[in-house]
């Protein structure tokens, strides 16, 4: 079987000592920042992106991917023990996980979170491997018109599934697209929006944009709150499940894995959407929904499996179509570009070792996480005792050094600070930064494909509507927009996101 050969190739790449090491580093760093509230995977990946210059591309991607799914493991620990999400994707885990901890079942909650995540990780790895080939074959048939429509569909999808005002989110996408155009135009060589600044001729750096909007803005927001964290001091209890708990939890793990894998595929999807979706589902189908919020194990098992599955399957659109669907994937595009890899369907054929190595490394990383995480929980808890006032200057330092090192220029550091300020303004005005980052990455790609499509059609814009695949995608995008204006769906969407915020 073909799949078997591919996986064998992947194991060959992922199991080399160097790549094992980077998978381990990624998984550990991911868990670390997952445990620590106040720093998320986007900021971390932006921070570490510059250090990957010297690595082999496959090692770099393996490490960065490890951060994303590692964060899903770590996030649950904080949610369960602290009633405070280590990651947004673990926000719903607080609801029942913390209640379980208060009942002395913290150990069971942590165990099911880790085991559910591992199960989901295994299934999602196989899922990625099986879906990738047909999808990338389909993508190879795409012309520039299809690509353009696909990007529009992806961006609209990301906006619809993000929370907050739709109008603002669309405007953020457009602003992102514009910011992506800063720098030299590849076709004409004209420097656009560069104001004669030599550093801007190469365009705005994705690291600066992401670090500023996500990392700095988050630190600045955190500094405003005067809340004091409280660590649960109760005993964690045995890190194992009773038979009864196991019986209750495993169907939720299965459902969480399924819904997470699918929600991870959607534009705008990924870990966060998956966990919210799974919690809503568990609550809906439970015989006794009133148990939720009071320590129902399904409320931990489902979302924690789902967020891990979603984190992994969100790589599919990136690896097969070359379209990032969330902010983390936008950064993965940045990482691939650093190493001169154009994300898209051709990666699988031109660079099969990289593709399959990355896929298999996800499974390997998950195995490491489940083996390491449960025994290491004691260490993670100690880390939570490091006060934020000591932590954030360290984060700032690594950000500053990282961004400086890209081009060895202080301009980039200042640029990051500007985006930090802009990010804080956006937080205050309740504008989500993720759509902007997606637009930023897609800006140049979209312009290029738009140009090519129009050149081929000799300036006839109907080309987007006469090619069936392109038309289908535009209809889907329009349908999504209509859907959200429909009052019923709108209410559901707000409810789904409100769950985790209470």
């Amino acid at each position, binding site marked *: 079987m073909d799949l078997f050969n591919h996986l064998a190739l992947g194991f060959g790449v992922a199991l080399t000592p160097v790549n094992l090491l980077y998978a381990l580093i990624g998984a550990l760093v991911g868990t670390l920042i997952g445990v620590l509230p106040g720093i998320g995977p986007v900021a971390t990946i932006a921070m570490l992106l510059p*250090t990957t210059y*010297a690595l082999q591309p496959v090692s770099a991607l393996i490490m960065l991917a490890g951060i994303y799914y590692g964060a899903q493991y770590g996030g649950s620990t904080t949610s369960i023990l602290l009633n405070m999400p280590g990651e947004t994707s673990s926000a719903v885990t607080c609801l029942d996980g913390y209640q379980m901890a208060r009942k002395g079942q913290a150990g069971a909650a942590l165990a099911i979170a880790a085991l559910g995540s591992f199960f989901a990780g295994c299934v999602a790895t196989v899922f990625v491997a099986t879906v990738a080939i047909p999808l990338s074959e389909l993508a190879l048939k795409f012309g520039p018109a299809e690509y353009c429509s696909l990007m529009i569909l992806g961006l609209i999808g990301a906006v619809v599934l993000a929370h907050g*005002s739709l*109008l*603002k989110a*669309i*405007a953020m996408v*457009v*602003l992102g*697209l*514009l910011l992506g*155009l800063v720098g030299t135009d590849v*076709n*004409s060589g*004209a420097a*656009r*929006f560069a104001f004669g600044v030599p550093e801007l001729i190469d365009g705005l750096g994705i690291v600066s944009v992401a670090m500023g909007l996500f990392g*700095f803005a988050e*630190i*600045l927001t955190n*500094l*405003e709150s*005067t809340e004091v964290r409280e660590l649960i001091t109760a005993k964690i209890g045995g890190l194992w499940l009773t038979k009864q708990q196991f019986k209750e939890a495993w169907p939720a793990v299965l459902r969480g894995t399924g819904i997470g894998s699918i929600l991870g595929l959607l534009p705008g999807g990924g870990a966060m959407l998956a966990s919210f979706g799974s919690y809503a589902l568990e609550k809906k189908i439970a015989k006794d929904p009133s148990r939720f919020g009071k320590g129902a194990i399904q409320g931990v098992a489902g979302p924690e499996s789902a967020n891990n599955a979603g984190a992994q399957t969100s790589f599919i659109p990136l690896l097969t179509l070359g379209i990032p669907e969330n902010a983390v994937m936008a950064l993965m595009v940045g990482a691939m570009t650093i190493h001169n890899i154009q994300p898209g369907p051709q990666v699988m054929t031109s660079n099969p070792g990289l593709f399959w190595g990355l896929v298999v490394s996800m499974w390997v990383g998950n195995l490491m996480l489940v083996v390491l995480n449960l025994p290491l929980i004691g260490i993670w808890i100690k880390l939570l005792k490091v*006060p*934020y*006032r*000591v932590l*954030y*200057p*360290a984060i*700032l*330092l690594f*950000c*500053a*050094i990282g*961004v*400086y*090192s890209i081009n*060895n220029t*202080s301009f*980039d*550091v*200042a640029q990051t*600070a500007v985006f*930090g*300020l802009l990010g804080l*303004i*956006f937080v*205050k*005005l*309740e*504008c989500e930064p993720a759509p902007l980052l997606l637009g930023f990455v897609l800006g140049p790609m979209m*312009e290029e494909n738009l*140009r090519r499509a*129009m*050149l081929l*059609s*000799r*300036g*006839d814009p109907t080309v987007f509507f006469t090619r069936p695949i392109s038309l289908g995608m535009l209809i889907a995008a329009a349908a999504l927009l209509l859907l959200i204006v429909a009052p019923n769906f709108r209410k559901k969407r707000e409810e789904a996101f409100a769950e985790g915020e209470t």
Partner: protein
Amino acid sequence: MAFIRHPKDFFAGLIFVAFGLAAVIIGSNYSLGTAARMGPGYFPRILGILLLVLGVALSLRALKIKGEPLARWYWKPTLVVLGSVVAFGILVNYIGLAIATVGLVFGSSAASHEFRPKEALISGILLSALAVGVFIFGLNLQLPIWPWSN
């Protein structure tokens, strides 16, 4: 300004209008080309106009629907944190990573409402040693360690 009923949306709209206008005005220097052969000004103009329209719509809508008031802005942490970072970026090549790190850590720590000078200084020195070890000796970053190492 009682006529603004949704200040968050209103000001967000203004920001988008500003960016949209800037894109259209600055972009007017770039040649448009034709639809079949787009010049460097074509796509930015489309986006600029789109952003402008979205911003105006958002601001106008903010006069009709009601929303929460603006959240308070804390100037001190913003200025202290971003200021220390920018200063670090400018100075690191002159005073070296060791001293610049202590400066950044100590300076940015002052933004916290639970600032403890002694603790911040110790943490700065420890992080300085770590940063020099990891970035200069480990990752071979081209940065001076001390002011005189250039």
